[in-house]
């Protein structure tokens, strides 16, 4: 999957290309072979591959297309949940790979989702991405700012900028009901059952 090579070498990605990538994602999301909860599936899955293509393509769109495209695609609550779960999986990959290369992928998934369902769900996964970068000793704020610049003025972009205003106690995964735990593939972020099932 994708490795560390970013798509800037692809050149400009067209609206037609992005629509095809989105359709490929939808096909994977609807696949009978896919399992939920997606959050806990071993990495990578075909759905991860399809979403990687979407989030990297989004970064290589012309500015005007990038602004119009998210509003033009068929979108449901399930798409919101899948995109934000992908972002949470990228936080886990940041920890496992010891690299922030997946951080941007997760943040861009948040931008594409665009807070269409409930922005509280976005804040939760953004806190995981923020935490993952800090656990590597990397300041996440410049990366958050860079991704926000891809959709400057959008509510989702402003949410990224708002992370520099959060108090330290509001940047912990515990304050969002999450924890880190070990799985067969290594460490991962997951909802803390003591919080979500109380």
């Amino acid at each position, binding site marked *: 999957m994708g490795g560390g090579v970013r798509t800037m070498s692809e050149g400009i990605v067209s609206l037609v290309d992005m629509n095809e990538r989105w359709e490929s994602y939808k096909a994977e999301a609807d696949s009978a072979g896919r399992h939920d909860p997606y*959050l806990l599936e071993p990495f990578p899955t075909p759905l991860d591959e399809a979403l990687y293509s979407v989030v990297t393509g989004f970064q290589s769109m012309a500015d005007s297309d990038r602004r119009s495209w998210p509003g033009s695609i068929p979108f449901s609550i*399930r798409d919101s*949940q899948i995109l934000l779960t992908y972002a949470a999986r990228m936080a886990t990959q940041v920890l496992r790979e010891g690299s922030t290369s997946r951080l941007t992928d997760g943040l861009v998934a948040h931008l594409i989702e665009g807070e269409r369902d409930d*922005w*509280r*769900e976005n*804040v939760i996964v953004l806190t995981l991405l923020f935490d993952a970068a800090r656990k590597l000793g990397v300041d996440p704020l410049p990366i958050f700012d860079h991704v926000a610049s891809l959709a400057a003025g959008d509510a989702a972009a402003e949410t990224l900028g708002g992370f520099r205003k959060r108090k330290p106690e509001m940047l912990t995964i515990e*304050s969002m009901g999450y924890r880190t735990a070990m799985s067969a593939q290594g460490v991962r972020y997951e909802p803390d059952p003591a919080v*979500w099932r109380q």
Partner: protein
Amino acid sequence: MYGKQLGKQADTAAYIGKPGFNVLNLPKEEWSMANNDAWVQGGMDRGAPFMPASEPNPSSVFNLSRGELSVFGRELRQLFNGGYDIQGAQQGELLGPGQDWAAASGQ
């Protein structure tokens, strides 16, 4: 009688500033699950009625991709655990503490 508004932020926003309604209206940078819990618990401690501003249905209450409740679903579970009657709850319906609340309040 009005109530505290639960639900997705896009839905609760319509009640901000309306007399008789109480919405957790924090800036995003001040929101956390812990603060959300405390706000709901504060209302429960006073026996306040709550009103779902969003329609409770499987996709709004449960996040299948995460394998857990949504934040909205979690709010409803918090009410249930606190003794509120949420059976058959609908958008715009007042939910009160105890099974006799609805009858006593004329709901």
